[in-house]
């Protein structure tokens, strides 16, 4: 097969007859982030969806607060909060069908929970227990990815594999503004576009990568503008407007499902809390900035809209909050139990079968633990024991 027969419109004829392979114009994002709430478009939004989003936002906000509280009680090693970004997290989860896959980054535990994964299992990694608590296949959620942007090619490969098998599966992959600078971001988007894989790349631009502001991360007009360089559409959306995020993501998912290939969506949002509980945000940003963003709060925005349209009354608000409290109480109670860990598990999953080397090491540890237990038993048997 020669290049002339390749799919795509590449023409090897010399430049006088040169044609772009795709028309760049429709790939470019809107000049302004797309908004729904507080605009004329709000009236057209499905009330049921808005109510559902609201309930999840409230629960999400509560979840973030609870998880942060658990770090103070030493029940979580570390927690990267998505407070202020709940609209993105929740919409990403709700927009997917059951058979679809979610590829979260380390900050996206809320999206994982909103997709249906048990919050305790979701936080397993962050509490210092086994690396991924949940079974990725149960809810089709990939393990939380800590090495930034490395999950993006996974999403592309999975979506591509599903398409090759003829399955109706879309993968939605999440990444931060900082993560877009990594080579893996570039390679993933390129593979996806060339393969027309059913993937949605969802960038939460929350203004910072730890302490580094967007201006030091990129000089692009917007991150969504990167799409054109891969030949996929780029969309820009107000990331604190849950209705808008849901609509833009739903469009992208539909486009992917229909065989149209990938889309890059950038949501403009803001990380209201510090990077994690271990971070001190006052070292790199002022309160004034945070306050401005608190004035554009995703929960408040949606609440306002629902109230305006008469879709929310005090009873409903109370019920939603009660649900959130129940979830938080359950999470707190269960996280307060020490997980039971078996050190022997260390050797169980390195390979399908432990190597003879690992078996030796397992026996070594087993013997050590037995000796330890014996010492303790001896010590525990009182002053007459073998205590040294």
């Amino acid at each position: 097969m020669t290049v002339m027969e390749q799919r795509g419109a590449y023409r090897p004829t010399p430049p006088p007859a040169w044609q772009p392979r795709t028309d760049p114009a429709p790939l470019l994002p809107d000049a302004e982030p797309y908004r729904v709430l507080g605009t004329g478009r709000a009236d057209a939004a499905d009330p049921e969806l808005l109510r559902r989003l609201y309930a999840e936002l409230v629960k999400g906000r509560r979840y973030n607060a609870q998880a942060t509280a658990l770090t103070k009680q030493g029940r979580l090693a570390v927690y990267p909060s998505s407070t202020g970004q709940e609209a993105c997290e929740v919409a990403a989860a709700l927009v997917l069908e059951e058979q679809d896959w979610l590829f979260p980054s380390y900050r996206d535990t809320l999206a994982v929970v909103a997709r249906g994964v048990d919050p305790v299992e979701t936080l397993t990694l962050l509490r210092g227990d086994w690396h991924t608590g949940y079974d990725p296949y149960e809810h089709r959620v990939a393990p939380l990815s800590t090495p930034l942007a490395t999950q993006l090619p996974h999403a592309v490969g999975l979506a591509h594999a599903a398409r090759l098998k003829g399955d109706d599966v879309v993968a939605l992959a999440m990444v931060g503004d900082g993560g877009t600078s990594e080579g893996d971001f570039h390679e993933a988007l390129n593979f996806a576009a060339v393969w027309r894989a059913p993937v949605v790349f969802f960038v939460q631009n929350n203004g910072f990568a730890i302490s580094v502001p967007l201006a030091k991360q990129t000089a692009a007009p917007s991150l969504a503008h990167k799409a054109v360089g891969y030949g996929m559409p780029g969309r820009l959306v107000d990331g604190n407007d849950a209705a808008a995020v849901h609509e833009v993501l739903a469009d992208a998912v539909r486009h992917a499902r229909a065989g149209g290939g990938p889309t890059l969506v950038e949501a403009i949002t803001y990380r209201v809390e510090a990077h994690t509980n271990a971070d001190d945000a006052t070292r790199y940003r002022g309160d004034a900035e945070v306050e401005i963003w608190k004035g554009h709060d995703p929960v408040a925005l949606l609440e306002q809209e629902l109230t305006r349209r008469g879709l929310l009354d005090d009873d409903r608000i109370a019920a939603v909050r009660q649900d959130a409290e129940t979830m938080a109480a359950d999470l707190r109670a269960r996280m307060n139990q020490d997980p039971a860990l078996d050190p022997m598990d260390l050797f169980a999953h390195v390979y399908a079968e432990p190597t003879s080397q690992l078996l030796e090491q397992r026996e070594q540890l087993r013997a050590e633990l037995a000796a330890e237990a014996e010492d303790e038993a001896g010590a525990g048997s009182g002053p007459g024991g073998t205590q040294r």
Partner: protein
Amino acid sequence: MTTVAAKPATMAQALTRALRDAMAADPSVHVMGEDVGTLGGVFRITDGLAEEFGEDRCTDTPLAEAGILGTAVGMAMYGLRPVVEMQFDAFAYPAFEQLVSHVAKMRNRTRGRMPLPLTIRIPYGGGIGGVEHHSDSSEAYYMATPGLHVVTPATVPDAYGLLRAAIASDDPVVLLEPKRLYWSKDSWNPERPSAVEPLGRAVVRRSGRSATLITYGLSVPVCMEAAEAARAEGWDLEVVDLRSLVPFDDETVCASVRRTGRAVVVHESGGFGGPGGEIAARVTERCFHHLEAPVLRVAGFDLPYPPPMLERHHLPGVDRILDAVGRLQWEAES
């Protein structure tokens, strides 16, 4: 029943055949990499596969190794068995983060729920007159990464057997292909290919009583030659071909060393921090009182791989091996 005679075949042919048989046997096997499709790979190992199985089963990817391995991870997550070709040893480095932080760890971090049945084929080693970045021996990096299997064939039947076993494995396997041996021939019957070897078994290529040469891949033929030459000096050398660096076949290796009482580890990779350190150390730990002399190492020098016009000085050859054997404290004998 017709009997088909074994005929000479090259290692390259055996590898191609292994891919073809694996793809025919299992529709979830997908080959991917740079130039593996239309061209059949720069070494032609994937020749004909795109034609036979279609471009979706043997895919020319964009030029990005992290992307190749990263998307292969995603494909494996969905139940496929990707076989990735890295064009040359040094061009696998861009994929290092994917390899170490995901490929090697995914089974473990998901407690066995998300195994990655991935094969990563890497032509490695020198002696082909290649310009810089085309002759690295990078096995030390992979050996030091728990979660990977690391194997390398030295013969035509093993090339077939190890590649089939790698693809059949539910774990990620790095298959280091000794590119200098691609065109080496063996008597082998492609119509009745050797049984799929289980991964992790070393083999005694040549029995001997004086000392053991412990080696793998590219250096196996060199050691066989050295063993022949050693006869003139009165040494009867045993040659152990490891075939698998991870897992390591302590049993076969130590049985040999206990028998001979002397050992030299031979590989092309640089000596310092190379595989030989691990091998010598573990043999010594296990066979100390059987050793008449320290386990010695013959390896490449501790340099970036040299230019082709000088590579013969770098590569461990027969003389250097015999020299090491000579330093195994034979005086103690008499």
